[in-house]
């Protein structure tokens, strides 16, 4: 059974155009689903809608989000928030801005456990110490007493990963979690996320524009353009034979890590025009109210 199920989800700017166009997807427990597309394709928007952190200007106009068999949008705002806090978590994009600069590390890991799940503080701190060890931080006690500015970017992303896994969530949304990091650190962090995900059996929604990363960590992927799902398939099948011309062009445009000298093939304009036409055709068939 799928842990996360999204059905015909549409998100629009209040009084403006659509950002997501009837997106449907399912992520099973322990499965890693990639959301790929260029910037503005709506891939981050899906994660934000699931976690209830859509920008104020955006709103859900249609569809349902089921988390662990519960219809999130049917719940009251408070209940929804607490359910999400207990069962899902976010690994944010930029570790340098995602930790509160005036708070020490320990409470930033334990706060969800203590405040939302009602854990005892000592137990929550012991859990935080274990998790920091699990994300290979050598000196958990010192780190827990530190302020964010005393730690490196890679270290902070490890902390954020530990914090995301703190409450044993069944779903984690990782929003381009390596984009802001050094290339050398990127690989370690990616491996860490994959290992943690596998060990904890968490469902992972992995937002990225980097198909190279997708091949390393994901089992299935969803290709988006203009908020519309173009293709949803198994990763292996995708790399063998992409099912949509846009996906194929996207794959061809991916810089190759094994051969940096290879020339870049930008997505041809004809393919973009075809994708745009597909979005326009969708809007004609399903006009937004």
């Amino acid at each position, binding site marked *: 059974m799928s842990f996360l199920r999204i059905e015909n989800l549409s998100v629009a700017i209040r009084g403006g155009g659509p950002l997501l166009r009837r997106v449907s997807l399912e992520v099973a427990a322990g499965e890693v689903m990639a959301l790929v597309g260029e910037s503005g394709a709506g891939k981050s928007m899906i994660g934000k809608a699931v*976690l*209830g*952190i859509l920008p*104020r200007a955006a709103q859900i106009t249609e569809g349902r989000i089921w988390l662990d068999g519960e219809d999130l949008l049917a719940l009251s705002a*408070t209940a929804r*928030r*607490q*359910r*999400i*806090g*207990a069962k*899902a*978590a*976010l690994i*944010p*994009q*930029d570790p340098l*801005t*995602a*930790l*509160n*600069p*005036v708070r020490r590390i320990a409470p930033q890991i334990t*706060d*969800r456990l203590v*405040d*939302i799940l009602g854990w005892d503080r000592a137990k929550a701190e012991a859990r935080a110490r274990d998790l920091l060890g699990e994300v290979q931080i050598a000196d958990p006690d010192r780190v827990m007493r530190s*302020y964010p*500015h005393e730690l490196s970017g890679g270290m902070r992303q490890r902390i*954020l990963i530990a914090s995301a896994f703190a409450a044993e969530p069944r779903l984690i949304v990782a929003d381009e979690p390596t984009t802001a990091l050094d290339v050398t650190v990127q690989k370690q962090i990616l491996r860490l996320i994959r290992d943690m995900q596998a060990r904890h059996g968490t469902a992972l929604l992995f937002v990225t524009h980097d198909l190279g990363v997708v091949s390393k960590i994901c089992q299935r992927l969803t290709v988006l353009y203009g908020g519309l799902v173009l293709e949803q398939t198994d990763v292996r099948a995708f790399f063998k034979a992409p099912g949509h011309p846009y996906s194929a062009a996207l794959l061809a445009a991916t810089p190759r890590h094994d051969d940096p000298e290879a020339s870049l093939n930008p997505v041809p304009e004809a393919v973009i025009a075809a994708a745009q036409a597909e979005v326009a055709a969708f809007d004609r068939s399903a006009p937004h109210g």
Partner: protein
Amino acid sequence: MLRQVLLRLVTTLVTLFGVAVIVFVVIRVVPGNPVAMMLPPGAGPEDMARLQALYGLDKSIPKQFVIWLGGVVQGDFGTSITTRQPVAGLVLGRLPATLELSVMALVIAVVWGGIVALVGTRFRGGRAEAAIDVGNGIALSVPDFLWGLVLILLFGVLWPVFHISGRVSPSLDLPFVTNFYLFESVIRLRFDLWWDIVGHMLMPALALAFPLAAIVAQLLKQSLKETMHLDYVTLARTKGYGETRVILREALRNAVLPTLTLVGVQFTFLIGGTVIVERLFSYEGLGNMAIDAVINRDLPLIQGIVILFAVIFTAVNLIVDLLYAVLNPRLRHA
């Protein structure tokens, strides 16, 4: 750390010296002669010269300054021309009244402005925020002394619940040993006196506080709203926290930092505002004394008061810097 403290001390002394030079020269250059105001009509030029010599006003300005500075170094700020008492004693006697009034105004402004900012942020984008913006605009555009008049009209005349003049009712027997009446009434648990003193101070304090409260509210609200878009706030939302909790715990302390510096600067303006507001409410503080000193051309007294104001301003800036370091962990180890 020690070097910073020393550097700070030196710059403070240089600042105070500069203030002293300016005020010393200006009040001697502008028209108006303190001696002429003391003499009865019909006094001749030779009487004038004798009195001027008595107060040392016949010497050149630089020479007078050197004499005055020599006294200051030994703690002697001269003698008031009108009251013939030592300036230091007069000024320090009035200082507690002004300090209590301005600190009370500051506390009111920060608490009120802070609450308004938090409410405005919590209900941002709605009617509540629009109403707050309008209220802030009004509070800010009306100067403190006009607020004083409005308050006198409302709570002194139409609905007389507060005292409109003085610092404490003259009929009361005061057991105080210091001039910090408000503070001492609490220490001595004399709440009857405390109530009377507050009844005198509340209106001038509110008049001073209104514009500052508006500034605090506006700056803090702006700062909070910007902070609410930051990543760590978004992350806290995903943890299951509600809006109020997120504002108070994640955003507030970060948003206070940029506000703090400006509030420090604005607080010095508030202290400057005590001059007129104290006069308006006949409150026996430094500001009221300053106006009398200027009217009577009491040169040593004016100098003493201005120097004391300069010392207060420097102290306020120092306190703001220290607070900033306490609130911002990034500066604590610097």
